[in-house]
């Protein structure tokens, strides 16, 4: 009789505790935490006019990250348009005067941007800097410029003013009205370089985020792909996501109309310009995400899609090896390239729907 009472009491006590115990065993968060326990090497710095954060796993990770950030600093010093004495600054100072010899690295990035300008018939434009300065979006001077000022700049956006000589690494702008700006591609290039440095140092698991351009090495230490969120273009808070890209050894770059913008008379003016109109691109795209191994490609392609619109944009993606795209339009439809499946991209926002023919 006495013992029975104890038994019942004990059973009542034990039941909830063992339940919590088993819950803890199957909790995936618990699994993740044990991996976090080893801890990655982490580093965050302000470079290339943005914030670059990196985490890498492995014994050599701290040293490898230091090397990678040093490389980005070198890129910044060579390719920033706003740094006096940078190679891009020298090219601009000599616009209409003569050619400038640059490092092979800067030459490569300029060459790639010219490739993309040709491939997109000028939708991607490395000479857009003057227009960017005129609108000044994201600064205290942001405003809708006079139409006449915009029209003045448009003729100088012709990429044929940019002349390259590969044998001598000479770059020339053949008109004094033209300015080179590698802003749309330099982050992507820097991401590729950082990844290469880490790989050379033997790192096999790392996550890099260069102002919203993501590139990953390998998988997470727990064996899962890296879960890269795509910013919800409709979200009012940062970090609200449209979906998740399960990423292994790839780069994920998203361009959105929410990144830098201002509103005037109820109209939104975002920071990706159509070099043919001189106004922010209005082809119905509000977010374009590119998944491909090379971040310089992803960077150029995501910008191009904004200017090209979804149809031409998807054509371009299908013609580019190893590149996939997720495009969200202003009518909240999601368009994807042929290689996107439910394993690669999980749509998480119910307000967004896939277009029917998918």
């Amino acid at each position, binding site marked *: 009789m006495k013992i029975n009472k104890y038994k019942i009491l004990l059973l009542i006590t034990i039941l909830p*505790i063992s339940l919590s*115990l088993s819950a803890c065993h199957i909790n995936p968060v618990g699994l993740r935490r044990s991996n976090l326990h080893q801890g990655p090497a982490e580093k965050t710095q*302000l470079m290339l006019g943005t914030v670059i954060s990196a985490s890498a796993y492995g014994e050599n990770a701290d040293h490898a990250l230091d090397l990678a950030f040093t490389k980005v600093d070198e890129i910044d010093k060579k390719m920033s348009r706003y740094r006096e004495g940078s190679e891009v600054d020298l090219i601009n100072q000599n616009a209409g005067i003569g050619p400038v010899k640059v490092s092979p690295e800067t030459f490569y990035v300029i060459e790639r941007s010219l490739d993309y300008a040709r491939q997109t018939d000028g939708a991607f434009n490395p000479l857009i800097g003057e227009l960017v300065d005129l609108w000044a979006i994201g600064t205290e001077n942001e405003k809708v410029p006079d139409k006449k000022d915009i029209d003045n700049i448009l003729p100088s956006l012709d990429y044929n003013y940019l002349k390259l000589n590969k044998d001598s690494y000479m770059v020339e702008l053949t008109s004094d009205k033209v300015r080179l700006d590698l802003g749309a591609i330099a982050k992507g290039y820097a991401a590729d370089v950082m990844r290469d440095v880490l790989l050379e140092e033997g790192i096999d698991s790392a996550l890099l985020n260069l102002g919203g351009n993501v590139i990953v090495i390998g998988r997470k230490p727990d064996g899962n792909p*890296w879960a890269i969120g795509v910013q919800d273009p409709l979200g009012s808070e940062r970090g609200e996501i449209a979906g*998740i890209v399960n990423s292994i050894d790839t780069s994920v770059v998203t361009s959105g109309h929410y990144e830098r913008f201002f509103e005037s008379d109820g109209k939104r003016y975002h920071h990706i310009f159509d070099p043919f109109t001189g106004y922010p691109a209005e082809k119905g795209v509000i977010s374009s995400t590119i998944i491909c191994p090379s971040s310089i490609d992803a960077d150029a392609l995501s910008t191009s899609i904004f200017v090209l619109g979804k149809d031409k944009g998807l054509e371009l993606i299908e013609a580019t090896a190893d590149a996939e795209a997720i495009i969200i339009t202003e009518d909240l439809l999601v368009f994807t390239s042929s290689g996107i499946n439910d394993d690669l991209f999980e749509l998480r926002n119910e307000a967004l729907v896939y277009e029917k023919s998918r």
Partner: protein
Amino acid sequence: MKKADKYIIIGIFIVLLISSLWVFIYKGSKDVKGSQAVISKDGNIIETIDLSLVKEPYEFTIESKNNGYNTIYVEKDKIKFAEANCPDKLCVKTGLLTNTSDIAVCLPHGIIIEIKNGTDGQIDSLAN
């Protein structure tokens, strides 16, 4: 019969002890690994806040060169730049940070707020 009951009771007590210890350790580690807001200025960490432990919302101000300042607002699981006198105010426009790997930055003043180690974050990083 009586002896067997005794063993059962002792056995049950041992299980009970282990499970409560387990729960205790588990809970303990969870508190340590709540989402952290790491605030850095010019590359140096100046403040680390465990957002999961914040009870009442509060604000504080970070001063930087040339009379620059940023006011930071903190509440449970959330943090943001509330106010600043930088020219572009991009830091304030970034809004509330809640998720793992979220970041807000004031380039002119060299200040970064980064969320780390959030246990409920469903993503590792954000493409935007």
